[in-house]
């Protein structure tokens, strides 16, 4: 298929490398170097899609990321929604179509790789236009570490879309030489197709590099598709150029309507004529270049419509020489056409007849907005410059400077000079010796006539409902009027009311125009109105890119114990406990969770069970003051613990609320092993370090986590002694009660592996915890299981562990407590030392609120029907004397914290926090369950073996 709008020669496209692509179901041929937009325009295709709300035809409005309208969905090689035709490079096999405002995410997994890199530089230069290249050259020659980052496929910036000369030769030759010099410099990183989308504190910038998108299906699998660069720069020069802005008039959204400078880019960079007959609407000199250059390329320019009464003499002469009519003091008041503009409706600004001028291309220039996004993100202040008609940076920031068109420079020579100067300033501040780069020569620019400030052209009938401000949002001048009518004034509020600037392009063409319109409608200038805040990202970034390699297993690390493979083979069903994978239960064939847990519980209460408790936190506390530190942090006395003994302890915050519990083993005079809950391991180490370092640095203590070094297996049940004796008896262990008492530990050796045995019970049964280095965990576990076989040893999981401890009324910190529960509330006043003058939390126990009789206290609940398992979290309520619920709001006594079926009790039971609960023992209260009230009896929390007869076997 021929491309009738492709010029015969010129441009940056590779005319010898055709590529085939499909758009909207039609096959086309483009050239390597084309964007989807330029390739479509080469075929005369202007309409890309329809608009989101109104379904109006929409085309290509600009040549790069500022385009508000050419939204496409890429289908091949991989679905990618919400791309712009103007930034999508074509390649063989590209399949895309327009989208009316919303794309479609892929419904298959993205197999592409994404990654990230860190980069530290002296100077980050954003933008490889004339200012950026000159800045980078200056820094490179001065020996600085430099990053030059630019979003387009090749360097040059605005020079890619012009015929400018630098040093008497085509500007892009100068750019090419500079790029070659930078490539050879050892300390320079030069990235193209890379967008700096955000700048943050202390010179931190994030950029996304599109590494293989332009290669399509030919992308090498081993190369990441996109990469996030995390750049830390000592100084940043923002040389991001400027965006042309439109003028708003009626039906300004018809395909064929385009920013004037963009038509130059399509011509010079892509060798594409955007139409055959053009009308140019302008408020300033810059669009004359487009008119003249397009005329020279063969486009018939029907008229330049200049809003200014006085047109620039230089350009008037250039137009006259080409037979281009210039209409001063006029404007375009509307367009005609359906899916493509056919006429521009031209009228004098002071009224009069409307002249419909035939055209298939309507070029518009309302002036230029410096691309101040990054400067503004870094909290730089903007001010409206009336002579330029633009918001400009008011200066520089500590570590960020702006140069070139982004700083308001209009001429090439100024851009070059500012780029070099900003770079030199930064380098001097960094203490580097600057090697200046001479500013290359550029042809003299014609004199500039002051621009006109025109935001909107009034509709001839006063109808503002088709005057589009934000094309992506289908938001019009009428919407802005409505917002002001509703009393809104700030552009931030108007933005949210109208949705202007909230779409894919984040208002690159609509934001400043909106400020101008607000000012026009309210009176005053744009400076009084200001702009909305510029926020990252500058252009959209895919979540997959930001995630990088932190996907799947690498998103959140999975921690497994040394016995993980054994549990897998045993058919464990897993529970996630923080990052740990713990066996929840081990179902036999045909068992559901309830049956399995009842079986596991029965084994532990009548025979012997074994649990992988390796995830318990373990902290090695060493030093002459180790006991003193523990005394200050635990509610009970630890320093009095004899070597060889174990003590249960509770830790509270300064507010007196329980934060963790566990057992403490005294290993030596100056050494303790502190056991924490699985979830509390990191928190308790943090807590100990905080107090030690910030309050008691004089204490001689060292702390280290040994959670992963030690595996721990509780062997639990009346037959546990037989198992321990069988396995460790040959090593000299005597497991008899007299020789191995409750809450004591002994070290032994099994097959050369050191093992620590501790008589600790979290079930009320006779039990030992077997501690072994994780290297030997599997061997020791398998010995225990083997030795337990005659006794029916049963591995059990966290569910059974929870039931067994709940039957004994042992709370789980964080399940039965919630940060508002004291040890006394848990019925554990016995664990609070009366002897110690102080410990963290002690003073709070005497606060009036903590002495209230009606505090919520941990109690047991027994459903009277002996069948209902109360859902955890259920509320506990009290009936009125009438036997009915009291009138709403029904007072809540508390809530169920743990609830299970008990094999031992042969009935369900629960733990609950209930107001004044201990005094209610024996009373009936009620728990609403699915619309009915279940009667429950309040009991003490210890439901199995309250005398503690079972712990010694």
């Amino acid at each position, binding site marked *: 298929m021929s491309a009738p709008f492709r010029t015969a020669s010129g441009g940056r496209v590779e005319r010898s490398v055709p590529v085939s692509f499909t758009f909207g179901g039609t096959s086309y041929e483009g050239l390597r170097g084309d964007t989807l937009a330029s390739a479509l325009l080469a075929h005369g295709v202007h309409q890309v899609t329809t608009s989101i709300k109104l379904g109006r035809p929409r085309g290509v409005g600009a040549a790069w990321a500022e385009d508000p309208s050419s939204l496409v969905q890429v289908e091949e090689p991989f679905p990618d929604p919400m791309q712009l035709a103007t930034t999508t490079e074509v390649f063989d096999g590209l399949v895309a179509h327009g989208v009316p405002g919303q794309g479609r995410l892929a419904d298959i997994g993205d197999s592409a790789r994404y990654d990230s890199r860190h980069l530290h530089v002296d100077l980050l230069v954003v933008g490889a236009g004339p200012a950026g290249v000159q800045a980078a050259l200056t820094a490179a020659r001065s020996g600085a570490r430099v990053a030059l980052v630019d979003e387009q496929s090749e360097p040059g910036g605005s020079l890619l879309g012009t015929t400018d000369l630098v040093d008497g030769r085509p500007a892009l030759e100068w750019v090419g030489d500079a790029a070659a010099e930078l490539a050879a410099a050892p300390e320079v990183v030069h990235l193209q197709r890379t967008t700096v989308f955000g700048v*943050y*504190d*202390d010179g*931190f910038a994030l950029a996304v590099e599109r590494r293989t998108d332009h290669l399509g299906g030919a992308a090498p699998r081993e190369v990441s598709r996109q990469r996030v660069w995390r750049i*830390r720069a000592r100084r940043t020069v923002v040389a991001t150029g400027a965006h042309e802005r439109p003028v708003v008039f009626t039906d300004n959204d018809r395909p064929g309507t385009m920013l004037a400078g963009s038509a130059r880019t399509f011509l010079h960079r892509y060798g594409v004529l955007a139409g055959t007959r053009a009308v140019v609407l302008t408020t300033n000199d810059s669009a004359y270049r487009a008119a003249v250059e397009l005329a020279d390329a063969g486009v018939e320019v029907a008229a330049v419509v200049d809003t200014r009464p006085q047109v620039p003499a230089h350009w008037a002469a250039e137009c006259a020489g080409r037979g281009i009519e210039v209409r001063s003091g006029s404007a375009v008041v509307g367009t005609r056409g359906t899916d493509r503009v056919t006429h521009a409706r031209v009228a004098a600004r002071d009224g009069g007849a409307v002249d419909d001028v035939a055209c298939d291309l309507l070029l518009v220039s309302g002036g230029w907005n410096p691309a101040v996004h990054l400067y503004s993100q*870094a*909290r*730089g*202040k903007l001010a409206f410059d009336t002579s330029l008609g633009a918001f400009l940076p*008011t*200066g*520089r*920031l*500590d570590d960020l400077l702006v140069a070139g068109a982004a700083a308001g420079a209009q001429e090439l020579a100024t851009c070059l000079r500012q780029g070099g100067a900003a770079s030199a300033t930064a380098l001097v501040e960094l203490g580097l010796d600057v090697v200046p780069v001479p500013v290359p020569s550029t042809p003299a620019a014609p004199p500039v006539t002051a621009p006109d400030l025109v935001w909107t052209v009034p509709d001839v009938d006063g109808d503002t409902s088709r005057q589009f401000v934000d094309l992506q949002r289908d938001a019009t001048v009428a919407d802005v009027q409505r917002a002001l009518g509703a009393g809104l004034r700030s552009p931030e509020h108007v933005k949210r009311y109208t949705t202007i600037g909230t779409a894919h392009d984040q208002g690159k063409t609509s934001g400043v125009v909106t400020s101008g319109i607000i000012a026009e409608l309210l009176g005053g200038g744009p400076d009084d109105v200001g702009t909305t805040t510029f926020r990252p990202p500058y252009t959209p970034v895919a979540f997959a890119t930001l995630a990088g390699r932190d996907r799947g297993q690498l998103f959140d690390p999975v921690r497994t114990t040394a016995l993980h493979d054994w549990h897998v083979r045993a058919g464990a069903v897993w529970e996630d406990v923080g990052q740990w994978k713990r066996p929840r239960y081990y179902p036999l064939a045909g068992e559901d969770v309830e049956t399995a847990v009842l079986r596991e519980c029965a084994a532990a209460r009548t025979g012997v069970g074994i649990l992988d408790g390796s995830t318990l936190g373990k902290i090695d506390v060493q030093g002459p003051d180790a006991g003193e530190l523990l005394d200050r942090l635990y509610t009970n006395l630890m320093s009095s613990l004899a070597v060889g003994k174990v003590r249960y302890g509770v830790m509270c915050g*300064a*507010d007196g609320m329980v934060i963790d519990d566990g057992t403490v083993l005294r290993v030596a005079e100056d050494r303790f092993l502190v056991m924490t809950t699985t979830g509390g391991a990191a928190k308790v180490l*943090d807590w100990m*370090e*905080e107090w030690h*370092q*910030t*309050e008691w*640095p004089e204490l001689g203590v060292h702390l280290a986590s040994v959670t992963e070094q030690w595996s721990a297996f509780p062997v639990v049940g009346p037959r546990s002694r037989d198992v321990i004796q069988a396995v460790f008896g040959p090593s000299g262990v005597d497991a008899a009660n007299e020789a191995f008492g409750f809450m004591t530990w002994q070290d032994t050796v099994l097959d050369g592996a050191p093992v620590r045995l501790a008589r600790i019970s979290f079930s009320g049964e006779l039990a030992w915890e077997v501690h072994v280095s994780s290297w030997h965990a599997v061997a020791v576990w398998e010995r225990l299981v083997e030795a337990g076989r005659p006794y029916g040893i049963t591995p059990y999981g966290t569910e059974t562990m929870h039931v067994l401890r709940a039957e004994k009324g042992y709370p789980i910190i964080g399940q039965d407590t919630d940060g508002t529960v004291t040890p006394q509330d848990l019925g554990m006043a016995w664990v609070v030392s009366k002897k110690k*003058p*102080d410990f963290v939390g*002690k*003073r*709070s126990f*005497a*606060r*009036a609120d903590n002495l209230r009789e009606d505090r919520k206290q941990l109690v047991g609940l027994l459903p009277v029907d002996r069948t209902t398992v109360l859902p955890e979290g259920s509320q506990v309520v009290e009936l009125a004397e009438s036997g009915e619920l009291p009138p709403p709001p029904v007072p809540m006594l508390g809530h169920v914290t743990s609830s299970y079926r008990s094999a031992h009790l042969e009935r369900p039971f629960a733990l609950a926090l209930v107001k004044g609960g201990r005094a209610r023992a024996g009373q009936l209260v009620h728990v609403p369950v699915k619309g009915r009230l279940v009667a429950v009896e309040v009991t003490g929390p210890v439901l199995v073996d309250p005398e503690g007869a079972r712990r010694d076997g």
Partner: protein
Amino acid sequence: MQMIRCPWCGPREEVEFHYGGQAHVPYPAEPAALSDEEWAHYVFFRDNTRGAFAERWSHSAGCRRWFNALRDTVSYRFLAVYRPGDPRPVLDQTPTAGASS
């Protein structure tokens, strides 16, 4: 993503650090001697300063050491860092809010 200067390690990424609340709120020497109100002030009450604020930080993903910092709560900028036990530094000038220009 500020760079925070750990007094032991030097400048490191903000993500390596953990905030620890207001500095120079010592644990009372004799909690038992305090009234409920005095104790409550220690446990529950902290300043809410606009401007330079002395606070505790921990280099939790680095050397794991605690230190103190003066930070401008308007601009978030760190104005000074110092080791526990050192006195709060006296600043040459009052911090300026927001970016310089």
